[in-house]
């Protein structure tokens, strides 16, 4: 079975390019059983949103308000 190190690697890779269908299937099975990796997956999207907001000066705007 896929372990968490491999699962997080695949979820990180998926931020650059879509995963192959069969890889995604293996990952989904892991995610169903692993709450840590399930949280990690949601955090990948959060990280991207945060970093892009930060790059656009979001934090500066918050300081001003």
């Amino acid at each position, binding site marked *: 079975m896929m*372990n968490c190190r491999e699962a997080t690697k695949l979820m990180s890779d998926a931020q650059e390019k879509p995963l192959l269908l069969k890889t995604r299937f293996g990952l989904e099975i892991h995610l169903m059983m692993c709450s840590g990796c399930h949280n990690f997956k*949601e*955090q990948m999207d959060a990280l991207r949103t945060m970093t892009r907001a930060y790059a656009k000066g979001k934090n500066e705007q918050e300081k001003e308000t």
Partner: protein
Amino acid sequence: MSANSNHQENTKQVGNLLADAAFLQDIRRQMLRFATLQLNDASQAEDAVQEALIGAMKNAASFGGRAAFKTWMFAILKNKIADVLRYKQRMVNIGSFAHDEDDEDLSELFDRKGFWQVDERPVAWGNPVASMRESQFWVVFEACLDNLPPKQARVFMMREFVELDADEICAEVELTTSNLHVLLHRARLRLRECLENKWVLQGEKNDELP
């Protein structure tokens, strides 16, 4: 617009690009953050960005649009940064990434079978969007970014700040796709862990206070 006025339209588009203060301001801000992180010196970063902007403006006529302008601007900036780093004698070999960070041990995070160490298992983050409205969150975020090892920080910034795609980054830093993926994986693992420890779990601790 008629078909034969395409060239004219292109020129006009570039003109609009440079007249667009918000676009330039935005790109300047992104580059400045990037340069500051790479150089660890606000005034050197400011100089590098300024020079890159001037350089990019000189060649503005050759750009088809915003994305091309941004990529070009970033390429100039990267060279400026490389010059400064070389001068500072602490150049981290930008041309070919060595593999030392690739060999980094992940045993702090994962056990021998590759499963999460019990105290490292990611927890649910609650409401990240709400966090982003708090100025203290961004202080923590910035500190966590600063804590990334230099190569990881550099490629992560290229990917998520400058929004270059993987192929562009690989070309820029002469890295294979698989090495890039390894570096980005590590950067995300670290950044995630840092935010969780310094923000999410701290917040829970504070909530428990009377």
